[in-house]
C-alpha cells in the first residue's frame, strides 16, 4: 500500500508518459471524484426540471419505466467509459481516447462534439436554476417573472459559477463533496415529506407504472420515446470524473469508480425520489398545463410554505450541479487547448499561477453557455410561436452532443481491439474482461437509438443547431486543423526535462 506522496509521484510519472506536465493541483480523493459526477448528473436538476416534459409525453409510467430503462443502458455506457478512463487517464478523456485509438482528426471532432454537448449541459443546468429561482425571487422582490428576468438570473448564476471556479479547485472540490451529501439529504427530506405530510395522500403503487396515458397529441409509444429526454438528460455529464482525472489521486482506479458509481447511485436515489413525487400527483393534467410541473405537484402536495422551502432546497442543488459542470467543461477545454485544438488555444490552456485553475477556459465556458441561451432567447423574440421550450432545446443539444462524444471512443476501442492495436495488456485496473465487448456493443446501440429519438419533433430545433455546428466544424477542419492539428500525440515529443521544468515552475509558484 503506497502512502499519498508515493501515489502522487506515481500519478505524475504516468501523466508524464503522455507528454504532459502536472500543472493542475492533484488533490481530489475518491469521494470528490465521485461527487463531481454525482453533482453534475444531479437528480434534483435533470429529473426535476424536465419532470413536466416526462409527464407530458409519457404520463406517470415515464417515471417508473422510463427512468429505469434509461438507467439500465446508461450503466453499461458508464462501465464502457470507466474502462477507458482507467486505461488512458488524462483530462482530455473522450477526445484523448479517440485520438489515441484511431487518430488525431477523429480526436479533434470528438473534442468539439464533446464541447458542444458541454455548452448545452452548462446552459441547460444553469437555465434550470434560473427557471426555479426566478419565480421564487419574483415572489420575494415583487416583480413578474418573464423570459427576460429568467435570462438575467441565468446570467447572474453563470457569473457566480465562473467566479467560484476561478478562485480555486479546493473550494470547488469542497462544495462538490458537500453537494453530493446535499443531494442525498434533500432527496431524503423530499421523500419523507411526501410520505408523511402530503395533503391528499399517495396514489396506489400501480400509478407509478401506468402506461398508455399521454397528455401530448402524439401516439403513446412515440410520446414515451420523446419523454425519455427527462431521464437521458439527467444521466449526462458523468465524464466529469474523467475530465478531473489529473486532479485525482490514484486516478486509474478512482476515476472509473467515480463514473460508474455516480450513475448507479443516481439511479437508486432518483428512482426513490421520482416514485414519491409521482405518487403524490392528484391532478396530472393540471401539472402538465402549469408553468412548472414539479413546482405544481410539490405545492399541491405539501402546501405553500413547506412547498416553497422544498423548492429552495432543490434550487440550491441545481446551483451546485452548475458549479460542477463548469469545472468539468473548463478542464476538457484546457486539455484540448494544450494540444492546440481550438482557436486562441494558448489562452484557454493557460493555468492561473495563483489559483492553479484554467481561469480563461472557465470564463470561455461561461460566455459560450450564455450565448447559446441568448440565441434561443432572440429566436423566440423574433418568432414567439416556435413550439418548443428553451430547456428542451438546451437539454437535447447536450444529450446528443455528449452521447455522440461518449460513443465515438467506445466504438474506436472495439475497432482497435479487432485490429490488434488495443490489447489486453493496455487495459487499466478497472476493466470488465470478457464482458467488455458485449457491454460496449449494447452501449453503442443505445447511443445511436437515443440520439435519433432526441432530435425528432418537437426537438427538431436541436437537430438544426447541431447540424449548423457540425458544418462549422467541417469548415474549420478543412480550412485549418486538418493540416495543423497534431493532437495529443504531439505532446509525446516533449522531453522529460522540458516537462520537469514546467512542473518546477508551478511548484515554485506554490511554495
Amino acid at each position: 500500500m503506497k502512502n499519498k506522496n508515493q501515489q502522487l509521484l506515481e500519478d505524475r510519472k504516468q501523466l508524464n508518459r503522455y507528454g504532459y506536465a502536472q500543472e493542475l493541483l492533484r488533490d481530489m480523493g475518491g469521494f470528490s471524484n465521485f461527487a463531481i459526477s454525482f453533482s453534475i448528473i444531479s437528480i434534483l436538476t435533470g429529473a426535476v426540471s424536465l419532470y413536466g416534459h416526462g409527464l407530458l409525453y409519457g404520463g406517470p409510467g415515464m417515471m417508473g419505466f422510463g427512468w429505469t430503462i434509461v438507467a439500465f443502458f446508461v450503466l453499461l455506457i458508464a462501465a464502457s467509459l470507466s474502462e477507458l478512463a482507467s486505461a488512458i487517464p488524462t483530462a482530455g478523456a473522450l477526445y484523448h481516447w479517440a485520438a489515441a485509438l484511431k487518430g488525431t482528426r477523429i480526436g479533434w471532432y470528438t473534442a468539439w462534439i464533446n464541447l458542444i454537448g458541454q455548452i448545452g449541459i452548462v446552459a441547460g443546468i444553469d437555465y434550470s436554476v434560473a427557471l426555479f429561482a426566478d419565480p421564487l425571487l419574483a415572489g420575494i422582490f415583487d416583480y413578474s417573472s418573464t423570459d427576460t428576468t429568467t435570462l438575467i438570473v441565468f446570467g447572474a448564476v453563470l457569473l457566480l459559477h465562473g467566479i467560484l471556479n476561478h478562485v480555486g479547485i479546493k473550494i470547488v472540490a469542497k462544495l462538490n463533496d458537500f453537494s453530493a451529501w446535499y443531494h442525498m439529504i434533500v432527496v431524503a427530506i423530499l421523500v419523507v415529506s411526501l410520505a408523511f405530510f402530503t395533503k391528499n395522500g399517495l396514489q396506489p403503487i400501480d400509478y407509478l407504472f401506468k402506461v398508455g396515458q399521454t397528455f401530448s397529441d402524439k401516439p403513446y409509444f412515440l410520446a414515451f420515446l420523446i419523454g425519455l429526454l427527462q431521464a437521458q438528460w439527467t444521466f449526462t455529464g458523468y465524464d466529469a470524473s474523467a475530465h478531473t482525472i489529473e486532479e485525482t489521486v490514484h486516478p486509474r482506479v478512482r476515476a472509473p469508480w467515480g463514473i460508474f458509481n455516480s450513475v448507479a447511485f443516481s439511479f437508486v436515489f432518483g428512482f426513490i425520489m421520482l416514485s414519491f413525487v409521482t405518487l403524490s400527483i392528484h391532478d396530472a393534467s393540471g401539472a402538465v398545463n402549469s408553468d412548472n410541473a414539479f413546482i405544481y405537484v410539490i405545492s399541491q402536495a405539501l402546501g405553500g410554505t413547506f412547498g416553497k422551502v422544498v423548492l429552495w432546497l432543490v434550487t440550491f442543488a441545481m446551483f451546485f450541479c452548475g458549479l460542477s459542470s463548469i469545472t468539468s467543461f473548463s478542464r476538457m477545454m484546457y486539455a484540448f487547448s494544450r494540444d492546440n485544438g481550438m482557436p486562441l488555444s494558448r489562452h484557454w490552456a493557460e493555468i492561473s499561477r495563483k489559483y492553479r485553475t484554467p481561469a480563461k477556459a472557465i470564463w470561455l465556458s461561461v460566455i459560450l453557455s450564455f450565448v447559446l441561451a441568448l440565441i434561443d432567447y432572440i429566436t423566440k423574440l423574433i418568432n414567439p410561436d416556435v413550439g418548443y421550450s428553451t430547456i428542451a432545446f438546451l437539454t437535447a443539444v447536450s444529450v446528443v452532443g455528449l452521447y455522440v462524444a461518449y460513443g465515438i471512443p467506445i466504438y474506436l476501442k472495439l475497432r482497435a481491439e479487432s485490429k490488434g492495436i488495443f490489447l489486453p495488456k493496455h487495459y487499466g485496473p478497472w476493466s470488465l474482461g470478457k464482458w467488455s465487448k458485449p457491454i460496449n456493443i449494447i452501449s453503442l446501440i443505445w447511443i445511436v437509438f437515443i440520439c435519433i429519438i432526441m432530435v425528432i419533433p418537437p426537438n427538431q430545433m436541436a437537430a438544426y443547431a447541431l447540424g449548423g455546428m457540425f458544418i462549422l466544424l467541417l469548415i474549420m477542419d478543412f480550412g485549418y486543423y486538418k493540416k495543423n492539428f497534431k493532437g495529443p500525440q504531439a505532446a509525446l515529443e516533449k522531453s522529460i526535462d522540458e516537462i520537469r521544468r514546467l512542473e518546477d515552475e508551478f511548484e515554485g509558484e506554490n511554495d
Partner: protein
Amino acid sequence: MGVVIGFALVLLTLAAGTAIGVRANKNVRAFNDGEHEIFVGRDDK
C-alpha cells in the same frame, strides 16, 4: 401486471449494476502493473 414488470426491471438494473461492479472490483484487486502497459496510441518512447 405493470407493477410486476416495473419492479422486475428495477431489480434487473440493480443486478446488472452490482454484477458489473463486482467484476470490476475483482479485476482492480487482481491487477498487476508489471503485466500491463500504458496505451499512448503508438510505441512508447
